[in-house]
C-alpha cells in the first residue's frame, strides 16, 4: 500500500483560536479514512486545507505525491469533493449540473452513468431545487464523482439525513472503495466511523489524539463492556465503582454507564445493591464498548457535546 495523502504538522489559527494544531496523518491507497470528532474540532478545516480550499499557516500536504501549495489545480483535477449545497444552480436539472461540472475537468464521467450510480434516474430532469434532501445528497455525491477522481472527500456526508438516506450514502462510499478509490471523510457519528471506516483518526480541539482501525482503538482502550441503565434517583459514582468487576462509571442525565471486565458479576452485584437500597432500575442493557466510549475516555466528554 502506498500513501495517497500525507499531512505533516499542519497548523491553522483564526485570530486567537487554534483550529488545527500540529496535525499529521497518512491516508493509504484504497482505504476509507475517517476523521471523527465533535463540531469545531478542526475536521473541516483540515479537510479544506487538503482540498486546496484554505491555506495552512504551516505544515506540508502532499496529495498523490504533489504539494498542494505548488499544484493546486492539478490536484483539484484528480480529487472529488462532496459538499452539501442545496442552492447550487437551483434551476438547472440534475443532468445539466452534472454536464456543467464535468466540463470543468480535463476528463469527465458521462452524466448518465453518474445518475445511474447514485440512483437518480427518475429525477434526472428535475430542477435541483425540487429535489428532496436525500436526492440532493445523492447529487452532491455524483458531483464528487464527476471527474472519476482517485481520492474522494466527504465532509459530514450524512449529517441531518434519515437512516434510509444515510445507508444509501454509505453504499455509494463502499462502492467507490470497491472501485479502488481512496475515501477521506469527516463525521461526528460514531456509528458511521465504526461501520464504514478502515481507519479512524479521533480529533479534538484541533489535535489528533488517536489513529487506528475502529476495532483496534476499542481493543486498545477498552477490554471492558458497558452496562447501561437508568436510575430513579441520583447516586454517587463511587458507590457504583465498588461493584465487582467495575472499572469506571459515567453518569449523565440519570443515565448510568458502568464499564466492567466481568459483566455477569457486576450485574448480580448491581441487582443486589438495587434491592437493598430499594432503587428502581430501568432500561438495563449490556453492549460492547464503542468509539463513543473511546472518545469519552480520551477526552472526558461525549462527542455530541
Amino acid at each position, binding site marked *: 500500500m502506498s500513501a495517497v495523502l500525507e499531512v505533516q504538522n499542519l497548523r491553522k489559527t483564526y485570530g486567537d483560536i487554534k483550529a488545527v494544531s500540529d496535525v499529521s496523518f497518512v491516508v493509504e491507497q484504497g482505504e476509507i479514512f475517517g476523521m471523527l470528532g465533535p463540531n469545531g474540532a478542526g475536521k473541516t478545516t483540515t479537510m479544506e486545507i487538503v482540498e486546496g480550499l484554505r491555506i495552512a499557516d504551516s505544515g506540508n500536504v502532499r496529495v498523490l505525491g504533489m504539494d498542494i501549495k505548488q499544484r493546486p489545480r492539478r490536484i*483539484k483535477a484528480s480529487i472529488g469533493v462532496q*459538499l452539501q449545497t442545496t*442552492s447550487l444552480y437551483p434551476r438547472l436539472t440534475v443532468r445539466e449540473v452534472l454536464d456543467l461540472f464535468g466540463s470543468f475537468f480535463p476528463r469527465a464521467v458521462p452524466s448518465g452513468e453518474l445518475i445511474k450510480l447514485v440512483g437518480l434516474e427518475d429525477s434526472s430532469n428535475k430542477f435541483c431545487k425540487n429535489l428532496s434532501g436525500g436526492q440532493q445528497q445523492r447529487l452532491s455525491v455524483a458531483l464528487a464523482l464527476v471527474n472519476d477522481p482517485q481520492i474522494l472527500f466527504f465532509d459530514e456526508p450524512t449529517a441531518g439525513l434519515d437512516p434510509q438516506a444515510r445507508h444509501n450514502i454509505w453504499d455509494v462510499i463502499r462502492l467507490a472503495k470497491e472501485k479502488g478509490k481512496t475515501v477521506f471523510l469527516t463525521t461526528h457519528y460514531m456509528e458511521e466511523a465504526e461501520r464504514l471506516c478502515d481507519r479512524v483518526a479521533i480529533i479534538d480541539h484541533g489535535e489528533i489524539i488517536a489513529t487506528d482501525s475502529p476495532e483496534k482503538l476499542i481493543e486498545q482502550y477498552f477490554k471492558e463492556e458497558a452496562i447501561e441503565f437508568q436510575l430513579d434517583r441520583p447516586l454517587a459514582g463511587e458507590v457504583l465503582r465498588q461493584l465487582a468487576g467495575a472499572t469506571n462509571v459515567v453518569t449523565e442525565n440519570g443515565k448510568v454507564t458502568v464499564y466492567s471486565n466481568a459483566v455477569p458479576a457486576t450485574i448480580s452485584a448491581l441487582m443486589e445493591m438495587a434491592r437493598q437500597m430499594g432503587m428502581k432500575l430501568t432500561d438495563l442493557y449490556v453492549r460492547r464498548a464503542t468509539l463513543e466510549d473511546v472518545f469519552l475516555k480520551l477526552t472526558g466528554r461525549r462527542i455530541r457535546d
Partner: protein
Amino acid sequence: MKVLSNLLIANIKQFVRERAALFWSFAFPLIFILMFGAVFSGTDDISFSVGLVMEDDSPSAQTLSTVLGQVTAFELSTGEKDSELQALNDGDRGAVIVVPADFGETISQGGKGNIDVYYDPAKSSSQQALLPIIRQVLNEFDRIVGQAPSLVQLNEKTLQTRDMRAIDYLVPGILAMAMMQLGLFAAELLVMDRENRVLKRLGATPLRRSTLIGSAVIFRLIIALGQAALIIIVARLVFDVPMMGNWLFLAGMVILGTLTFLSLGYMISAFVRTQEAVMPLIMAIQFPMMFLSGIFFPIEFMPGFMRPIVEAMPLTYLGDSLRQIMVDAAPLHDHWVNVGVLGGWFVVSLVVAVRFFKWE
C-alpha cells in the same frame, strides 16, 4: 473558452427559468415607464378651466370676452357669479373672472375699467401660470381698445430641434436606473453564493475564478443590453420617445454603466457577509441615487446645498450621457467628463473589491 460559454449558458438558463428575475429585470422598468408616462402625458397641453361672469354686455366687455375666448390655454365657461364661485370652491375652476356691470361705461367715460379675478391661492398653478396669462390678456385688450400698434413681436424658438417632454427626460433615466439595479443586485447573488457554499464548491474544482467572474459579468452585460433595447423600443412605440444618437455610443455607455455598478456591487459584497445585511445596504445606496441623481427630474429643481451630493453620484453621469445620446438633451457635463467619472468609479470600486473580497 468552452467552460466560460458553458457557465454563461447555465446562467442564462437559470435566469429565464426564474420568473421573478425576469420580472424585475424587464417588466419592472417598463412598468415604471408606463406609469410615469401616464402621469406626465396630461401635462403636455396645459389647460385651465376658467369661469367668466359677464355682468355687462357693452362692446368693451364683448371684446374682452372674445380675447379671453382666444386663449388656447383656457377652457372658458360662462355663468352666474354665484354658481361660478361655487365651482371655484369645488375645485372645478382654476379661476373666475368677473366683469362688473359698470365696466363698459367706465371705459367709455375714459376711466379705468375694473375686473375681478377670483382664485385659490392654495393652488400654485393658479398663481404661477393663470395670473400671468390673464395679465397678458388684459394687455392685449388694452392694445386693441387703445388701438396702439404692438411694438414687439415675440417669436418663440427653442434651442432643441424638438420639444423635450417629461417622458423624453424620464426614459433615459429609467434606463440608467435599470443598469444601476442590475449591477448592485449582483452583490446579493454573490453574497448568497458565498454563504451557501456555492463558491466553495466551485473552488474545489479546477475552474478558474477569473472564468467564473468573467462569465457572470458577460451574462449581466447581455441582460443590460437586452433591457436597454426593450426599454427603448417600448418607449418608442408607446410614447414616441426618439432614439436620436449613435446606437454604438449608446451600447458603449450601457456597458460602461453596467460595469461601473457591477464593480460597486462586488465592492459591497466584499464587506458584507450575510444575505440579511446585503439587501438593506443595496437599498441604502440605490434609493438616494435614484432620487438625487436627476434621473427622474432635472437637478436644477434640487436645492443648491444638495448639488455636491448629486455631483458625486455615478448615476448622475450615466443618466446625463444616456439622455444626451437618446433625446439630445442639454448636457450637464461633456460626454468625456461623464465617461471619465464613470470610469473612475469603475476602477476605484474594482480595486477595492479585488483587494477586500473574500471567497469564503
